């Protein structure tokens, strides 16, 4: 099998797919476009047959690990099984072949689906209104923070600060900053935020507290209501990063905990595939007070008819051309309809059960920084193994030799050498037992023959890559 680049497999004059014959008069581009805007050549563009192209990409796919390939416990990313029927639903021609500018009377099905999905998400989260427009979780964070910014500006007292715990996902401070806020970090010693820590920094210049619940250590923020009260009393908002909603569906609603804005990550909680890095979808839910600031257009129902609504004078505007990642919404809708209320609750319960089971078994061999019941993910560290010079990275690489995708590593930053495991509810006890067995074997290896772990992976087609070289002399494209 050759893993050469497609450009290197190119042969001058070779053709791929056939192009239709012209059924209208042929014209010379020079007659209608000035010659100084016409291009001569596309240098280096591939010239391969259709079979060359198919083999090339199929071979590449075989060098990839996906949820369908094996266990993928990447913490915080919720790599659950992606039901196949959802893929079929998204490809129905009524959905996939609809133009965003076709008349609303031709888009009634799509608008109905979006309207209902907004309702489902409101119900699941306890929020009053939802927009489906943002294209991913971080896009949703930006949307939410821009809404808060627009609100404080409309009140005539623009507030500048946002409080974020140091356990937050990196996108949280980046999104706040992009929305024009200054970030104030609070340190998290005990795994969850204390009301005192929030009270000590909360002031009249603070627009919001941004937290994740369950948080990125996998713990529920038990004091959330008290914390929300502190923030609200000083006129601030509580933003909750809802990327970890997979632990809470049918169990508790963020809206009941004093949260004012959240984003959903449909590509996590609602089973839509991550596509090797997207597309995702990051709807935002808000309480009534922020509803006027939601992005346009909104989806409106009048009688039995649906339409797009643009008349929202307080809106932050538009975050994306057209409406949003509609194809992803169809998959999430299909998932929610397939699961129903009991199925969603069961999903959260089993996700949490799987995580606690793994934590309980692995804490015998790995350091567990916060020894308490976790939610849908657990965080271990390499503290024990590092005594033998075996580190988190080595453990992760060794897991590949046993056929598993490694967990998230070195995140959250507050746990040195973190190993963050999120099994999700779609994995069976047998799979999890095999993973636990592999982790226990690695712990043994780290003690008895550490070199095996440090030289991993040995079974993959490519070994550990030189990251430093890639940064020092960036090669970001092929050149002849």
């Amino acid at each position, binding site marked *: 099998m050759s893993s050469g680049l*497609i450009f290197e497999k190119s042969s001058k004059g070779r053709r*791929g797919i056939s*192009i*239709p014959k*012209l059924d209208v008069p*042929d014209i010379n*581009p020079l007659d*209608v*476009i000035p010659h*100084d*805007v016409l291009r001569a050549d*596309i240098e*280096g563009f591939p010239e391969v047959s259709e079979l060359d192209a198919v083999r090339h*990409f*199929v071979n590449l796919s075989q*060098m*990839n690990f996906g949820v*369908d390939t094996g266990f993928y416990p990447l913490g915080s990313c919720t*790599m659950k099984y992606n*039901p196949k029927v959802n893929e079929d639903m998204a*490809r129905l021609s*009524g959905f996939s072949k*609809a*133009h965003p500018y076709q008349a609303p009377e031709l888009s009634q099905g799509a608008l*109905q689906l979006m309207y209902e999905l907004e309702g489902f998400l409101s119900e699941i989260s306890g929020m009053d209104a939802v927009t489906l427009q943002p*294209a*991913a979780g971080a896009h949703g964070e*930006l949307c939410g923070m821009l809404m808060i910014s627009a609100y404080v500006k409309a009140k005539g007292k623009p507030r500048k600060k946002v409080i974020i715990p140091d356990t937050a996902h*990196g996108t949280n401070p*980046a999104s706040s900053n*992009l929305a024009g806020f200054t970030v104030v970090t609070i340190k998290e010693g005990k795994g969850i935020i204390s009301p005192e820590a929030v009270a000590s920094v909360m002031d009249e210049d603070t627009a919001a507290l941004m937290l994740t619940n369950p948080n990125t250590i996998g713990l*529920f923020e038990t004091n959330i*209501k008290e914390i929300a009260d502190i923030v609200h009393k000083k006129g601030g908002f509580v933003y909750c990063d809802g990327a970890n909603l997979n632990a809470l569906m049918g169990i*508790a609603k963020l809206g*009941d905990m004093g949260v004012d804005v959240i984003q959903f*990550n449909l590509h996590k909680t609602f089973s839509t595939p*991550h*596509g*090797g*890095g*997207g597309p995702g979808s990051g709807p935002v839910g808000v309480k009534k007070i922020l509803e006027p600031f939601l992005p346009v257009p909104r989806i409106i129902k009048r009688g039995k008819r649906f339409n797009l609504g643009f008349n929202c004078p307080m809106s932050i505007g*538009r*975050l*994306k*051309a057209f*409406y949003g990642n509609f194809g992803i919404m169809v998959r999430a809708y299909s998932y929610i*309809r*397939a*699961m129903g209320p009991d199925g969603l609750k069961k999903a959260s*319960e*089993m996700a*949490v059960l799987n995580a606690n089971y793994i934590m309980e078994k692995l804490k015998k061999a790995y350091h567990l920084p916060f020894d308490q*019941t976790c939610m849908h993910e657990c965080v271990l560290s390499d503290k024990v193994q590092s005594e033998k010079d075996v580190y988190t990275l080595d453990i992760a690489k060794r897991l590949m030799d046993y056929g598993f995708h490694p967990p998230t590593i070195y995140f959250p930053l507050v746990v040195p050498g973190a190993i963050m495991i999120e099994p999700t509810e779609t994995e*069976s006890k047998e799979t999890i037992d095999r993973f636990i067995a592999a982790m226990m074997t690695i712990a043994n290896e780290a003690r008895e023959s550490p070199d095996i772990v440090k030289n991993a992976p040995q079974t993959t087609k*490519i070994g550990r*890559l030189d990251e430093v*070289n890639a*940064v020092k002399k960036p090669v*970001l*494209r092929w050149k002849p």
Partner: protein
Amino acid sequence: MSYIPHTDNDIKEMLGVIGIKAVHDLFNAIPPDIRLKTPLNLPNELPEQELVREITNISRKNGNIEDYISFIGAGAYNHYVPSIVHHIILRSEFYTAYTPYQPEISQGTLQAIFEYQTLICQLTGMDVTNASMYDGASASAEAVLMAQRINSRPECLLSSALHPEYREVVKTYLGIRRDSIKEIPFCTETGATPVEAVERYIDKDTACVVIQYPNFFGSIEDLSAISEIVHKNGSVFIVVITEPISLGLLKPPGAFDADIVVGEGQAFGSALNLGGPYLGFFATKEGFLRNMPGRLVGETIDKDGKRGYILTLATREQHIRREKATSNICTNEGLCALTAAIYLTALGKTGIVNLAKINLCKMHYLRQRLKELKNVKPAFSSPVFNECVINLNEDGDTVIKSLLKQGILGGISLKRFYPQLNSHILLCATEMNTKEDIDMLIEELKELKNE
């Protein structure tokens, strides 16, 4: 359907290991007053067969471009998607993977993105490209923010012939700083951005000038003259492309010394999908590499000297620099970037050139036939690729409605975006429009005019 494998016995055994009695004990950290007491108010679960029936019925309430003859473009294009594209993106090793944080078992995604980066550089004539943005509009907004990072100037000039929704998105991203945006009015005769207006608007506070190519009206802008003015003033020149098939024929923005080239890659094999998911592409000059938002794949070697690919230059990114990151983007549009790579590979060097030429011929046949109509005229004089504006001397919305009754999606009425263009519609013709389709459109327009 529950997609959950646990048997009652599994659950019992696992609870035993954890040392608790019941599943609800796992949630003891959640205070009782915020625990739900009743089930969620959602429709009951559906078995797969009923699910398919129900959702298919909803989809049938939608019209689509298979049921109509479509001349709508305006940032979302109806192009033929070769079978190979569907077959490969449906390989679940690709679509069920995530961001390639572990390169040894993600070489498929990584190499495909590296090839995508190369293809976009070749097409745009730029040095470097990232692994994708959400769409053309958000990529445009990020380009404006990048320009401000580069020269620390406050103001942005947007051509009013830049896609109206792209302009809105730029304003949203600038948030409270949206007052710093100025629009350069398009020329009502040519439909292009007047070079002298750029000169008039630009000054030492101008961070960047943003021009679409071909622009929202389909007009091909004079990038050469505009580029010169922009650079003389020390501003950043941003070129936006919504119909990248045009690059098969048109000189790449890089050849006009563009600093940042962004756009919409939907035309490269992604379905229309009612507006998403699409593909934002983002390319720039080598010198601006460290100011560029988004993820990048780089080439390197493994410990045995074997060539391999890896995410690189993460120091600019949110998980390291956090509040100082060049952008907050994390999940991007990876599968759409893969789609573009497959599509462009399948077309190849001659394919993209021929396809672009077919698009040009279809549009010019349409323009030719318009001459037969007395009251309908091309609105602007600039050269066009596969889109153009026509003036109907009659309310645009009314005409669109009448055409729809005849089974034609007759472009978009420009009234909603440009109130002064209330009798104008924007038409697009691609390789999907046969001569018959175009003839039918012309006949219907003739009929309308006789009424």
